[in-house]
């Protein structure tokens, strides 16, 4: 399984804070394509969004980052702390 997390405006837009998915994806890119199939709101937030930020196992990642079983993948907007 792969754990997926959504933060801040993404969590609200997608109506979900986290989920577990089968480890059927070789990279963030293929995971994103699969999530985009869920509909317009997913497409907008995760594929057509130049501000999408990605982390894999708590490290900054990008669409090309490989993923495997047990990984934690997070999607979120640009950070605004401090």
């Amino acid at each position, binding site marked *: 399984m792969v754990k997926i997390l959504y933060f*801040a*405006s993404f969590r609200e837009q997608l109506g979900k804070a986290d989920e577990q998915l089968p480890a059927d994806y070789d990279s963030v890119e293929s995971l994103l394509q699969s999530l985009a199939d869920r509909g317009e709101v997913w497409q907008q937030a995760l594929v057509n969004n130049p501000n999408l930020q990605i982390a894999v196992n708590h490290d900054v990642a990008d669409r090309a980052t490989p993923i495997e079983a047990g990984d934690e993948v*997070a999607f*979120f907007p640009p*950070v*605004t702390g*401090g």
Partner: protein
Amino acid sequence: MMEQAFPQIKIQTEDFDLSQEVAAMRAGHKDIGAVVAFVGTVRDINEGDEVSILELEHYPGMTEKALEKIRQEAHQRWSLENSLIIHRIGKMYPTDQIVLVAVASRHRENAFYAAHFIMDYLKTNAPFWKKETLPHGEERWVDARVSDQEAEKRWATA
């Protein structure tokens, strides 16, 4: 507990006391001549609107790791005796303290640069998100600032 893995990083809902935190950071490091402490506070105005509540969300686990990485980078760039980062999460109100970055060094220049560097990197690299509530109850996520991206770039090494 993440607090044990990264003792100089604290993520907490409660407020902090500046004097106590600075004293604890200095304790056991006698050869300190300079301390620079930055405190970020909740402004009552943002983007021209009055703000009633500021709520801070974060990514547990990644936050601590990201902040410790920034802190270590500061220690590699400047000669520092110690440093500390505290960031609050949850609901805060105008004038509340949000964040503390404190740095101790022998000479002042290193402490000034390192504290400024840590804040600039924290702004663009630590997974925190702010949501504002306006007086009539409207909520909105705070937008990232282009000026924060520019501020980070100034520290880029060749």
